[in-house]
């Protein structure tokens, strides 16, 4: 028996054929029949796992760990003093002395997790969260850091983690894409942050709008046309009739292509239906902050993410646009940014929980790097890939845990360090995928999301 990878390798020559032949088989056998050769058919993970899908809330720009969740009393005490240990060899800008956080911190819930006044709503969910305070990466620039976070490489074009997940697990709903990214950024790697690179294109994310599109206007590409449905139906019937007229009886490619048009016809309804938030109650809208101007846009993204997750999309990413890059005006801008996302995120967590979805949905929050505890200018902070905070919630994650630590000032990850590769390994593990086994052969070798690195952070697993 050829492995799935071998089957996909023939993609170069007959991928469409393969998918189609199988689609036909599934049609013949009924919808519930296994679709072994269909590259998007649901697949069994390497081992049993709690998380079935992922919602990644990406904070583009680099939120400051020492102003959000990594409480550093010594930073306040030593405000204005020089950093007592060396700065990194490579930095993106010149920086000065230690700068205390302008935000007050407090502890939340039974776990006593710290959160600054920027995140009161998320703070209130602390007992559902698992903080990783010792995240670190390798690149001090947005582009490299975004690519490293999304693809594991800050050097070359590699498949995005959502594509790997889609490749590893397939999709649960064939009328919808398996990997959706809502309002992705088009800069700092842009499409390469969600592209499939050398994996078959079918695993690529479907972008809904971009960071410049209001959440009310995002759509699957080409899903809306100018032809009225009744006439489009007639066109499709004509197309099928003409195609069948020319086909030989055993022509699977023809039949498969006809089916793909039928699927497209259904998708025109399915995707907009999932995106239609009008069926949700006023209470739900309020929960996500959709009724308030500041929180409306990200609230819609979060609610759409829940609806896509519920409908069987494997990986959903929401991007809070390139706003978190406070080289200056830290207090003003971090306050505004956090206000836009705090309530929607808490709303999403609450909603997932009450619908019973949180137990098998993995929610991930974070940015491409953290920020320096030393000042850039008077009231800003520079990029810092050496320490930042992520939190995970939901499927298979130890809730109420704070894992790892930075040094006294939050400049370097110091205890139980978690590299981005380790985070990737852990995410795959939570989905039942062994990061060393999820491989794809390309240009002469087997590639993985984690390259030759990555260790599962076992301590955060429930």
């Amino acid at each position, binding site marked *: 028996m050829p492995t799935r990878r071998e089957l996909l390798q023939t993609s170069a*020559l007959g991928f469409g054929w393969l998918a189609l032949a199988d689609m036909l088989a599934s049609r013949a056998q009924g919808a519930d029949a296994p679709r072994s050769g269909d590259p998007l058919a649901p697949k069994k993970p390497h081992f049993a796992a709690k998380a079935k899908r992922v919602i990644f809330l990406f904070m583009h720009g680099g939120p400051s760990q020492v102003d959000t969740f990594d409480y550093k009393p010594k930073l306040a005490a030593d405000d204005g003093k020089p950093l007592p240990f060396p700065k990194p060899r490579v930095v993106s800008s010149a920086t000065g002395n230690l700068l205390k956080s302008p935000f007050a911190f407090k502890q939340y819930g039974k776990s006593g997790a710290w959160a600054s006044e920027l995140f009161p709503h998320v703070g209130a969910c602390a007992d559902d969260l698992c903080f990783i305070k010792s995240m670190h990466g390798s690149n001090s620039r947005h582009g490299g850091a975004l690519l490293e976070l999304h693809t594991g490489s800050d050097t070359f074009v590699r498949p995005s983690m959502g594509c790997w997940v889609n490749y590893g697990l397939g999709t649960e709903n064939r009328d919808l894409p398996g990997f959706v990214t809502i309002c992705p950024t*088009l800069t700092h790697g842009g499409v*390469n942050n969600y592209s499939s690179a050398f994996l078959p294109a079918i695993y690529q994310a479907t972008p809904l709008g971009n960071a410049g599109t209001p959440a009310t206007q995002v759509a699957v590409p*080409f899903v*809306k046309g100018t032809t009225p449905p009744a006439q489009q139906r007639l066109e499709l019937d004509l197309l099928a009739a003409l195609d069948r007229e020319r086909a030989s009886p055993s022509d699977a490619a023809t039949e498969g292509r006809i089916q793909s048009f039928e699927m497209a016809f259904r998708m025109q309804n399915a995707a907009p239906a999932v995106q239609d938030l009008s069926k949700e109650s006023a209470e739900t809208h309020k929960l996500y902050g959709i009724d308030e101007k500041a929180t409306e846009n990200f609230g819609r993204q979060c609610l759409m993410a829940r609806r896509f997750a519920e409908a069987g999309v494997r990986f959903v990413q929401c991007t809070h646009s390139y706003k978190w890059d406070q080289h200056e005006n830290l207090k003003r801008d971090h306050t505004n940014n956090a206000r836009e996302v705090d309530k929607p995120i808490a709303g999403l967590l609450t909603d997932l929980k009450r619908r019973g979805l949180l137990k098998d949905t993995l929610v991930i929050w974070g940015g491409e790097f953290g920020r320096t505890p030393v000042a850039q200018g008077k009231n800003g902070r520079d990029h810092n890939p050496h320490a930042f905070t992520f939190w995970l919630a939901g499927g298979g994650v130890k809730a109420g845990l704070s894992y790892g630590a930075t040094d006294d000032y939050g400049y370097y990850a110091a205890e139980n360090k978690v590299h981005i590769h380790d985070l990737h390994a852990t995410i795959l593990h939570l989905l039942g995928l062994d990061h060393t086994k999820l491989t794809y052969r390309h*240009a002469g070798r087997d590639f993985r999301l984690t390259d030759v690195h990555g260790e599962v952070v076992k301590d955060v697993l429930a």
Partner: protein
Amino acid sequence: MRAGSLVGAVLVLFAGRAVGAPPDAVAHFEKKVRPVLVEKCVSCHGPEKQKGGLRVDSRAALLLGGDRGPALVPDKPDKSLLLQVLAHDGEVKMPPKNKLPADQIAALREWVRAGAPWPDSAPVVVGPPKGGERAFTAEERAFWAFQPVRRPAVPDVRDAKADVRNPIDRFLLAKLSANGLTFAPPADRRALLRRVTFDLTGLPPTPEETEAFLKADAADAYEKVVDKLLASPAYGEKWGRRWLDVARYADSNGMDENLAYVNAWRYRDYVIRSLNADKPYDQFVKEQIAGDLLPGGTEAERADRLTATGFLVIGPKMLAEDDPMKMRMDIIDEQLDTVGQAFMGLTLGCARCHDHKFDPITTGDYYGLAGMFYSTKTMKNHSVVAAWNERAIGTPASAAARAEWEQKVAAAKAQLARAQSPAVAAVAGFASVPLVRQQRDKVAAAEKAKPPGEEAMAVEDAKGENLKVHLRGNHLTLGAEAPRRLPRVVAGDAPLALGSDRSGRKEFAEWLARPDNPLTARVMVNRVWAGHFGAGLVRTPDNFGRLGERPTHPELLDWLAAEFVANNWSMKHLHRLVVTSGAYRMSSRPNPAAGAKDPDNRLLAHFPRRRLDAEEIRDGMLAVSGLLDRTAGGTLLKATPRQYVTGTGSRNYDGYAAPRRSVYLPVVRSAVYDVFQTLDFPDPSVPNGQRVATTIPTQALLLLNSALADQTAAAFAKAVLAVEGDEAARVRTAYNRAYGRAPTAAELDTVLAYLKGSEGAADPKATADERRLRAWRGLCRVLLASNEFVFVE
């Protein structure tokens, strides 16, 4: 290299100092040192794993060290790598996750200062020393792709049923006959014409061309068509695009800082021109790697050769990398990876961090070639945001125009400065404001009038320098010097005498272009074959290494390679051979018996049907609807130099509306035209020698709902509705334009019924004309979305 003779040798070391060490030193080791090594280090550096080639479970192993050298210098803690990495303040930090507590580090330091006594003084056996290059095995040297090309004898085949036209057929039939199979019958003439026209030009035949070919009764009518197609400028547009796939061509950087490459199009036009001129492939190779270093020729030829080296510059780069040396080495790696796959079918990139795991390519080979590119100026600088190299390619006339323009700009600026001077302001008062504005406009206008055609993305030689091997690919941990040289397994062990006066690129290019290079001709012949038969004779066209596939017809591959070189590396000769073979003229209808024996059609018992490429679908839709603009060359990229073509929330580039051939549409990384993206256009960030064809619902959505589908269907419908006669006559015209044939009676009935139904289902408020146009637009959309249109039989 001496390493070869040492393979298999073992070193026996004694941990001599332990015997007779003072008892308190032994106690200190046992209590404070050994437990730390065992608990914190041995899991990665012991019997199970030897990360970095290092073990720490004996004194001898520490003395021997790993990839980074000895880990221990007895008596000298500050010189011992072991203590350096424990400090967690350098590049290498151990243990990686957590720094050891200060008291444990102090204990280890004390132990080293005391001479690092280790009580178990048993000798340890370790492998061969690090550093030397490994020798290749006989099996590696005998690998098929590294053997010289030999022109095999053409097999004698007796197959009365098969259409045997040239040696290609004899090689193929030899294998088919051995399996009890033969060629499918010849394709019908209409299918053959559509096939060869799309294959050589990327466009459908016009109804007139089809009619002429169907009527032609000369024995060589087909050969004449082939000659005409090869002579058409559309040939270079189709096959140039194939090469651009391999060259990962794009009009923007992509990656982190997506800046416009406003001069990339010159390289694209150079490629199209070269193919149309049937430039010998060996020359084409040399120009792209070292065109700047080749002597002689006219001004225009020199400009062309500089432009050709754009091949080395157009790759995607991380332009905002704070570590300039990392940026530089990453760019070189991208170049080597592309050069390796494009010209040699080898994945050189694998040897950046360690010897290639599957192919006989060592880090010495990698850094030997990398040194040549290190000695080449690809970038103007490596600062953030870095700038790539561009060179003037002006003719004397354009240089004069440029000088004149520079003078005009300078004069306008001088005038502006005068207008802004305090003296003028004092005299003119408020009146100076409009004056300044006027002068500013003049400067802007002068700057805008920059004469075109003066710079190309291109490289130049810098000081020749060797690199050191980068251990694990890291520029901060360097190994032995790697003299610049060619890959040993093919080029042999003789070094290239390269001083500081040259990079070695020219020598590399000349070696690649040698007739006896076993890879260059085979790789290219295989690409041409794959372009006509859907799959190569080697089905992994960019990887001829051990993990690539073996040739299905090694003799045919070699015969074609020899024929290619013997005919002055003529691409057109190769195409002509392939498309005039009997094999190429077979029907695409599979024979069920052959399908059972050879389900993948590796033996070619029938012609493989293929879906059109993204560009062919778009160009075909535009051609049939009468919208296609056949203007050649130039740029459609509406961007200023280094302009960001994508922003956080914007695609600043969306100039894809021009109805020009697809090859002339800009390829903007991260904002690739969505029509292309959906129809399997290859990722322009990586070299790509094989197109794929998926069938996914978004393609159907595109053909139903996109602006391209709307525009082409509307133009097509209007053209057909202008035809005199009855509805049936118009349907016949539509069929003829789309497929080069008339509809069958059954098809005509189906279509007429559809037209009636669609008009009936239309919005009753619409006028009769509108309803009719909508119905016909629907028909035209369907014809262009049909299998008959998007597949080549």
